[in-house]
Every structure is written in structure tokens, then in C-alpha cells.
């Protein structure tokens, strides 16, 4: 296209290898660092980021500046910054691409953010499957340290910050900020809503947990100003660019950096459109923990606010595309299977309710569904909202999407007593409690 | 020596009457149970002796050998003597009832009545009223709420019905012009008073039924409300005395009906004693039939019947009888 949008995050992306520090610096990298450390006060940095309207890219979309402002000036030291790269949301792979494309952009963003909250220590929390990326980051951290961007008294500014890589033990829930902090502390990775991270996070000290994509936006903001950043967006409410991961039945699945607010149709076009012979049916707009969007939302602006306005969430911006030949009940069952397995087991609705939903979906899928399962599913999914953290509501989102837009498809399963599509196509692992067909069982007193 | 012979004669008569009456009462229980069971398509007592004929004996033995319980807090003296009052008053009424034609023996006419009082009818009333004391005192002395309520009900019922009982007999006295029961029987030489006084007969029959507290008037001992009413707390032979009293009263009632309305011992062909027995038995059987048929009245229905129906009816009957007598007599 003619008006090829400005690339901010993937500017230095190369097909063969990650950008080196030299390449990064050649493109103006670390300039923001030099211009900020010791020259601007942390409060100013905070304010700039707040002004830029940067919102968290990890899924919840909380304004980064507001989060940082939660750490009060007189808060305790040391303070911690945790760049969250525990990317386990199905369909999301943007952080990996980002880290692999331009590790120093990420590092600079982290240092600048740490400066904004006066954190002395950063812990790069990375998914265990990203072992190569962890090694890459560790390598590049050494490079950055040698260049004087990390460690004590960075660039003579008097600001000290060091960053180390922590490999997760590999649970989806570790992506949740408070669970992540617990995990780092060696506790069970349970979310903790009792305390506020900005006051009592890691080891009881103020802690900021941000997605790496969010943090990677910071150098740009500081270098070119919040107005520029705001201007990147295609919508009024949005700011900056967004990494959209497109997967599913499209010709060219990939991560695309587009201005936030780019229309879904446009993104799908970038991904080469639907596969030959496939016809668009639905899309998950922001990873597995968002609702299905049917065809009528084909042209929606992919930004936090416009999606919210139509009852959807941007999530991580991971677009998963389903075509006419995919059984959405089966697809949802696949997702629920994953979520039920990954539940931390802390609160009841999530621990017991998700397997229940999975059981109902499974029965519908294999043709044993009953009419009363539909209201039961709806109730059950609705009650997931009252679980301890956002995990269960997220897990229930595709179910709600399925019920809201594709109830007909469920009814087809019920009336045909089998899956009208190819069938399951997914493999069931028996670490979860296996399910049994109804014939041999009668309800009994419990 | 006449007085001595009189006393001996009296004692013999007393003895015979007592034995006959008590045996009759005991077997009346048997007859009642047997008849009732047949009315209800059951068999009735059939285990003690042939046809269960020894049942009254077994009952008596049982009652005699049972423990005599006195409830805690009971008024002991009254409690122990109340059943006696009931039984004795019932037995004593029979003293004035003529049960046969006078019998000539060694030149003396021996009247077939224990004692021919010229105020016999008043005597009957007096003793039937005394029976109330047994019920009232027994109920009160038991120190039990059921007994007390039974006693109170009994008193109220018996006093109420005594009025209509009395009123129903006034025409009889007017006809016989005597209070003596012997004279009353004598007055029925030609036709029994039932023919002249059907209303009085019905009044008397109903009132007497209420007086002896039998179904449908057994409100003082209504089982399903008061367990056993005034004799709830009694056991053994003391209970037996209450029981005896009731059945003796039944015989007495039969006799009174016979005397007042059915011409007493009079009757063709058969000896007077037999006639008398037949009449008494007939009344008693009707009483049993009633018991087997009718349900118990409610307390207010009972009072309603006594005060609003029977007493006015009795008064009217007296006035009518009086009027007729005046007109007829003149």
C-alpha cells in the first residue's frame, strides 16, 4: 500500500537475525536513554508516558502511565520492574517476534520505564518455551551492560538499574501480574488481590509488571514526544502502533505492526486474506480469552475503545481466524481444555467450573448434548466473572461468544446428534479427569 | 316374730337381688361386647370358655389382681371412695323397683320388691343424683386434667338431664296418682303408659341415656379427647367399680323404663318375673344397639338438646297431660 504506516517496534526487524546493538543505535537507539537519564526527572517521564496515552499491551489495556503513577514518590526502596514476557495466551506470539527483532529496543524501554518508577532491579520474566529468546536476551543484556546502559550509575546519571532473566516454570497463570510476582518469590503462582502491586509487590516492595510490548513503546515516546505517539493511532482514543498476530485460516499468518485502530479487514488483507477455498466465519480478536466475533464485525477498528463499544476486547491483539469448515464448538472445546488444565486451582469457579464447561462442550461435540446444556453453559460461563482473578472470565469468553453468535451451530450439534463438521480434530489428554459417556451413568445422590 | 321374719325375708330378697343384679351386670358386659362386635361384623370375645362365656369372669379376675394405683397428688380418701359411691348409688335404686307380683307365703303376701316406698320415685331421683358425686369427686380427686374435665362434664351433663328426666315422669305420676313404683305398676294394669305417654317415654329414654353417660352421651369419658374422662387414673377393681356402676345403672334403667312405661312385670301368659326380665333386656339391647349405631354428640349439642328441646318438650307434655286429665276427669 502507498501509505505504508510508520514502523515503531519492528523497524529493525530482519528476516534472518535479531538486530544488533549497533544496528539499533544506528536507528537512534539508546538516544532516548541518554537524553532522559539524569536530564528528565522520573516524574516527567511518567507524565510523558501518561500524556502519550500508552495502554498496556498485555491484555487488560490499563494505561501504563497511571500504573506507574501508582508507585508514589515516597514509596519504599528497592522497587522492582518486571517486564512480562510470559506469553502463553493461545494465538499470541508478538513478544517473541519483538524480542527477536530488536532486543535492544526492549532493553531500552525497560531501562527507561525503570527510571520512571526509580526501580533498581528488573526481572525479565520469560516463558520457558522461549529458551532461545531468553538466551538472546541474556546475551544482549551483557552487551548492553558492556555499553554502560545497565548496571550501576548508568551513563553517569546516578541511576542504577540491572536486569536479569527469569525463566518461568511454565504455567499460563504466571502471566497474571500478582501470580508472576508470587512465582518469582518461589511461592505458588496464585494471583493475589489482597495487596496492591505498586505498594507491596515483589518481596513486599513496590513493583511494576508491564508487558514488554508496552515497555518497548517508551523509547519512541521519549524520543519523539507523546503527541507523535498519539498521532500514530488511527482512532481518536488510541495511541501508538500495535503488534497484531494473525493466525488461523489466512494465507500469511504473521505479526504485523499497524497503527492501533486499524480495521480488522485491513489486517486480514495484510495477512493475505483467507486461505484458498476458505470462507470467513469468525475471529477471536485478542487471543483465546476473548469472545468470538462473527462476520458482522469484519470491519471493526482494532483498538481498545471501539471494540469495547461493540462488546469485545482487544486483549493481546492476537487475531485467530476461523473458516466455514471449522467447528466452533470443537474450537471452543479445545480452548477450554487448555484453560481448564492451566487453572491454578485456587478458586472454585475456575478450578471446578471450567472442567464442567469442558464436559458439557465435549458432550455437545460428540453428539450427546441436550437442550438444557445451553442455558447451563450460559449460566456457568456468566458465573466465571465471580472468580478470583481474570483468568476464568477470560476462559469463559469464547464460550460466551459461541453462545451469543453461534447458538445455531450448537443446536445443529444437538439436532444431528453429532458434529456437523469433520469432528473433534483435537486430541484429549488424560491428565485431566477423563469424561465418561452418559449411557452407563445415572445421576445419583451426591 | 313378724319383724324377724320380715328382716330375714328382706335379707333374702336383698341377697337375691344383689346376686342377680351383679351377675346381670357382669354378663351385660359380655352381651354388650358380643352384640357390639356383631353390629360391627366382628366376632367379639370367643376365647375364654365356650363362646367366650367366661370372659366376664376373666375380666373380674384381671381387675381384681391388677395393681391399685393412686396418682401422686391425688386426694387419697376421696379418690378411693368415689367409685364406691357410683356403684352403691346404682345398686340402691333397685331397692324400690317391683319385679313381680306379690307372692303368698305362709299367709303373708311377700311383695316382689325390696322396699315399697311411697316416695319411691323421689328415692330413685335422689340416688341417681347421688351418682353424680361419684363422677365429680372421682374426677376431681385424681389430680389429672383429663379426669377433672371428665368430672366437670359429667356433673354438668347429669344435672342438666336430671331436669328433663324429672319432667318426663311428672305425667306418669299424674296418671298413677302415686310416687310409689308399685302403685305405678299397678296403675298400668290395663295398658302400659307408653301408649298414653309416648312423648314422656321418649323424653325419659333419652334423658336416662344421658344420665347413665352412654353413647351418644358419653362425653365425660370421651376417649379421643379425655383418654377415659373421670376414671382415667383408676385401675384395678376401683376401675371395676365404675364399670360395674355403669352396667348396674343400665339394668336399673331398663327396670325403670319397664316400670314406668312398659307395665312393669305385667304381661300375659308368662310369669311376671319373666315378663319383667324380657322388658328389661329389651331396653338394654336397644341401648346397646344405639351404642353400636350413633356417634358421640358434641358438648354444645348435648347441652342444646337438653335445655332447648327436652325440657320445653317435657313442660309442654305436662301441660297437655294436665289439661287432658282435667277435661277427662271432669
Amino acid at each position: 500500500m502507498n501509505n505504508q504506516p510508520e514502523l515503531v517496534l519492528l523497524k529493525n526487524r530482519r528476516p534472518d537475525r535479531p538486530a544488533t546493538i549497533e544496528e539499533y543505535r544506528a536507528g537512534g537507539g539508546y538516544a532516548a536513554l541518554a537524553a532522559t537519564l539524569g536530564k528528565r526527572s522520573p516524574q516527567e517521564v511518567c507524565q510523558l508516558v501518561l500524556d502519550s496515552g500508552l495502554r498496556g499491551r498485555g491484555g487488560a489495556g490499563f494505561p501504563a502511565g497511571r500504573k506507574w503513577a501508582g508507585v508514589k514518590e515516597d514509596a519504599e526502596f528497592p522497587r522492582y520492574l518486571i517486564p512480562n514476557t510470559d506469553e502463553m495466551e493461545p494465538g499470541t506470539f508478538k513478544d517473541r517476534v519483538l524480542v527477536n527483532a530488536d532486543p535492544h529496543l526492549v532493553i531500552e524501554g525497560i531501562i527507561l520505564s525503570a527510571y520512571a518508577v526509580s526501580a533498581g532491579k528488573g526481572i525479565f520474566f520469560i516463558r520457558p518455551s522461549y529458551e532461545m529468546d531468553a538466551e538472546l536476551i541474556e546475551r544482549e543484556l551483557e552487551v548492553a551492560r558492556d555499553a554502560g546502559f545497565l548496571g550501576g550509575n548508568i551513563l553517569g546519571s546516578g541511576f542504577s538499574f540491572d536486569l536479569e532473566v527469569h525463566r518461568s516454570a511454565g504455567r499460563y497463570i504466571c502471566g497474571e501480574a500478582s501470580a508472576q510476582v508470587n512465582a518469582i518469590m518461589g511461592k505458588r503462582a496464585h494471583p493475589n488481590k489482597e495487596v496492591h502491586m505498586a505498594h507491596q509487590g515483589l518481596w513486599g516492595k513496590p513493583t511494576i509488571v508491564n508487558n514488554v510490548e508496552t515497555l518497548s513503546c517508551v523509547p519512541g515516546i521519549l524520543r519523539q514526544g507523546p503527541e507523535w505517539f498519539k498521532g500514530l493511532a488511527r482512532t481518536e482514543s488510541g495511541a501508538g502502533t500495535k503488534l497484531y498476530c494473525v493466525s488461523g485460516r489466512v494465507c500469511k499468518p504473521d505479526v504485523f505492526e499497524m497503527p492501533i485502530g486499524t480495521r480488522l479487514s485491513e489486517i486480514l488483507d495484510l495477512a493475505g486474506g483467507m486461505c484458498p477455498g476458505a470462507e470467513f466465519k469468525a475471529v477471536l480478536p485478542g487471543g483465546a480469552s476473548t469472545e468470538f466475533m462473527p462476520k458482522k464485525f469484519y470491519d471493526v477498528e482494532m483498538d481498545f475503545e471501539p471494540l469495547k463499544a461493540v462488546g469485545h476486547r482487544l486483549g493481546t491483539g492476537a487475531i485467530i481466524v476461523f473458516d466455514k469448515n471449522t467447528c466452533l464448538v470443537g474450537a471452543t472445546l479445545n480452548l477450554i481444555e487448555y484453560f481448564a488444565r492451566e487453572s491454578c486451582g485456587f478458586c472454585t469457579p475456575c478450578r471446578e467450573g471450567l472442567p464442567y464447561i469442558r464436559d458439557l462442550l465435549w458432550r455437545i461435540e460428540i453428539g450427546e448434548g441436550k437442550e438444557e446444556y445451553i442455558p447451563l453453559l450460559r449460566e456457568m460461563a456468566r458465573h466465571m466473572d465471580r472468580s478470583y482473578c481474570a483468568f476464568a472470565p477470560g476462559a469463559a469468553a469464547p464460550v460466551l461468544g459461541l453462545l451469543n453468535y453461534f447458538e445455531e451451530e450448537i443446536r445443529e450439534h444437538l439436532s444431528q446428534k453429532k458434529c456437523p463438521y469433520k469432528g473433534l480434530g483435537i486430541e484429549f489428554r488424560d491428565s485431566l479427569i477423563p469424561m465418561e459417556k452418559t449411557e452407563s451413568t445415572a445421576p445419583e445422590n451426591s | 316374730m313378724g319383724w324377724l321374719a320380715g328382716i330375714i325375708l328382706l335379707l333374702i330378697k336383698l341377697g337375691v337381688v344383689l346376686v342377680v343384679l351383679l351377675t346381670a351386670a357382669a354378663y351385660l358386659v359380655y352381651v354388650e361386647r358380643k352384640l357390639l362386635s356383631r353390629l360391627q361384623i366382628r366376632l367379639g370375645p370367643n376365647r375364654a370358655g365356650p363362646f367366650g362365656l367366661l370372659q366376664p369372669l376373666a375380666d373380674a379376675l384381671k381387675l381384681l389382681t391388677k395393681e391399685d394405683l393412686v396418682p401422686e397428688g391425688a386426694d387419697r380418701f376421696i379418690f378411693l371412695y368415689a367409685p364406691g359411691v357410683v356403684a352403691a348409688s346404682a345398686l340402691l335404686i333397685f331397692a324400690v323397683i317391683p319385679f313381680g307380683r306379690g307372692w303368698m307365703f305362709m299367709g303373708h303376701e311377700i311383695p316382689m320388691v325390696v322396699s315399697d316406698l311411697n316416695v319411691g320415685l323421689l328415692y330413685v331421683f335422689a340416688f341417681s343424683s347421688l351418682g353424680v358425686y361419684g363422677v365429680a369427686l372421682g374426677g376431681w380427686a385424681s389430680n389429672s386434667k383429663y379426669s377433672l374435665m371428665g368430672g366437670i362434664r359429667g356433673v354438668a351433663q347429669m344435672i342438666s338431664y336430671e331436669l328433663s328426666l324429672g319432667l318426663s315422669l311428672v305425667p306418669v305420676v299424674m296418671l298413677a296418682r302415686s310416687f310409689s313404683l308399685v302403685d305405678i305398676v299397678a296403675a298400668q294394669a290395663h295398658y302400659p303408659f307408653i301408649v298414653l305417654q309416648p312423648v314422656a317415654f321418649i323424653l325419659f329414654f333419652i334423658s336416662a341415656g344421658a344420665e347413665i353417660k352412654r353413647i351418644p352421651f358419653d362425653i365425660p369419658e370421651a376417649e379421643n379427647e379425655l383418654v377415659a374422662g373421670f376414671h382415667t387414673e383408676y385401675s384395678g377393681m376401683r376401675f371395676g367399680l365404675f364399670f360395674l356402676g355403669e352396667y348396674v345403672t343400665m339394668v336399673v334403667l331398663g327396670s325403670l323404663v319397664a316400670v314406668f312405661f312398659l307395665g312393669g312385670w305385667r304381661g300375659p301368659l308368662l310369669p311376671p318375673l319373666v315378663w319383667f326380665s324380657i322388658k328389661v333386656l329389651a331396653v338394654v339391647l336397644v341401648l346397646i344397639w344405639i351404642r353400636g349405631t350413633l356417634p358421640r354428640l358434641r358438648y354444645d349439642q348435648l347441652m342444646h338438646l337438653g335445655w332447648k328441646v327436652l325440657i320445653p318438650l317435657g313442660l309442654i307434655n305436662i301441660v297437655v297431660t294436665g289439661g287432658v286429665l282435667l277435661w277427662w276427669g271432669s
Partner: protein
Amino acid sequence: MPGEKNRLLRVTEGLVALIQGFWTTFIHLFRKPITEEYPEYKRPLPPRSRARIILTRDPDFEERCVACYLCSASCPVSCISMQSAERADGRRYAAWFRINFSRCIYCGLCEEACPTLAIQLTPDFETCQYDLLTLVAEKEDLLVDHGGKNQEYNYYRYAGVLVDGDKGGHIQEARPVNLKSNLP
């Protein structure tokens, strides 16, 4: 006056009813009594009649009673007492079990309360004794060698507690969770 007419009607009706009543009882006199004379003729009782209590066994010939105390708790006259104990294989059973039949009112609440169908009432009602103490029945008096009204039911196949063998062997149970596995 209609009122008067009504009253007359009522009196007549009453009289007729009275006569009908007396007539009914009177003709009953001549009907054959329906009484069944008990010791000579023993009437067969329906299987759900409530009389003497038994303790039944499950199809594996084990005692069904697990001594859960529910029958004694439900007994309105407190005539059931027992002591539970543990067998070597972990199965719960009654070390002793006693029903005082001199107190029992045969209400059947124990049978209703029994979760294992162990305690059951039978139609056998001829249990009179002259000595009250002989009416106190012990487990050995109560235990029978059949399943009573339901021969098939076996509580321990549903219980979900280990008796012998591995967990997860009961009806509608999954294999035990593998604690040491970290597989997804």
C-alpha cells in the same frame, strides 16, 4: 315460611338418616364376621410391612452396615445403639449393634435413614417375650445372610473411599491424579 319448611325437611331427613343408621347396624348382625382368627389363621403380610428388623448383607456377602449411626440418630425412641470400628482393610463396620425391641415402635425411620440399605424391616412380627431383656437383640441376632429387599446394592462400589486396592476403582470414578507428573 321457607325456613319452617326447611326445618321440617331437616327433621325428616334426620329421622330418615337415624332409621337408616339403625337399619344398617341391624342388618350387620346377620352378616358373616370378617374377623380372621389369628393363631389358627396367619395372614400373609406384604413385604413392606414393618416389623422385626434385620441387618442385611451386600452381594459380596459383606455386612452392609457401616455403623454410620444414622439409624440411631433417626430413631425416635432411641432403641438402636452401636459402636463403629475399622476393619484391617479400612472398611467400617459395627463392632456391636443392638436394637432394644422392647422400645422399638417399628416406625421404619431407621430403614429410611440407612444409606447402605443395611437395616431393613421385615413382616415378621411375632417377637413377644416374657422377659424384656430377651428383646434386646445383638448384631448376631439381627444379621441375616441375604440382601433383603434389594439384593444388588453395594454401597462400597459407590462410596469413593478406599477399602482395598487403588483409588478410582469405584463406579463413576476417574483414575487417581498423578501428583508427580508435570505433563499438561
